[in-house]
């Protein structure tokens, strides 16, 4: 049991627990906060796996931007604690069944896969190397993604407008 292992398993536990808590919160703000914790954990996992740039990105974009956006929206709409039933049985049991099935099948697949047995050790990718790789090998995807982000920006602006002339549509 070295430090690498200890760190991974404890963080994995943190991620699972906080995600589980996030899923089950009635208060949406709480849920988002737990999820931010979970994303921090993920960021740490990335760091462990030798991707410091991704870890930083995770913290900045996911935990920092996306989740805060969620918080903004929740607070703006004043829907912190919805009144409806948290887990209606009609929906929960199928969901649980599907999730369980998912786990079982995933476990089966993973156990079956010889690759699953391989052991991962510490490693490091320089952000500069990663950046060079991304822009050399996947430049087209980068361009497409940037275009997508632009479209999303415009789309969000357009959709998010307060529907003032609703009656005409």
């Amino acid at each position, binding site marked *: 049991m070295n430090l*690498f*292992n200890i760190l*991974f398993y404890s963080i*994995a536990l943190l*991620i*699972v627990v906080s995600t589980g808590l*996030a*899923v089950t919160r009635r208060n*949406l703000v709480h*849920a*988002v906060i737990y*999820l931010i914790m979970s*994303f921090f954990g*993920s960021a740490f996992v*990335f760091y462990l*796996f030798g*991707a410091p740039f*991704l870890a930083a*990105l995770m913290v900045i*974009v*996911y935990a920092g931007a*996306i989740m805060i*956006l*969620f918080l903004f*929206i929740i607070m*703006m*709409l004043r*829907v912190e604690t919805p009144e409806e039933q948290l*887990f*209606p049985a009609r*929906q929960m049991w199928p*969901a*649980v069944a*599907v*999730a369980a099935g*998912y*786990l079982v099948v*995933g*476990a089966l697949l*993973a156990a079956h896969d010889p690759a*699953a*047995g391989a*052991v*991962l050790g510490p490693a490091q*990718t320089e952000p500069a*190397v*990663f950046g060079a*790789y991304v822009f050399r*090998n*996947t430049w087209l*995807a980068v361009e497409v*993604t940037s275009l*997508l982000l632009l479209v*999303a920006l415009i*789309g*969000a602006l*357009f*959709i*998010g407008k307060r529907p003032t002339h*609703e009656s005409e549509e």
Partner: protein
Amino acid sequence: MAGIPFGHVLALSGILVALGVACATARRNLIMILLGVEIMLNGASIAFAAAALRWQQLEGQAFVLFIIAIAAAEVSVGLALIVHLYHRTGSLDPEKFNMLK
């Protein structure tokens, strides 16, 4: 024992995806559905990062990068839609939005 078996990382990401699925399908709240999707994406990202380490290939990490970017796009549009819907109907209950039925 030096290092983590790849299967354990897959298990972690699997659990995350399963939680995401459960969240997205069981909660009657549009925001929670979107959160569930984020959780699933997160699980997938972890699996990709681990795979990158496992095979010493940078494609996995590049994929994570794009996942984050696309998640950002998706969340912005999704939340805009939610805001729009909330303004129109005053509710976030997904069962009410079934006009395409």
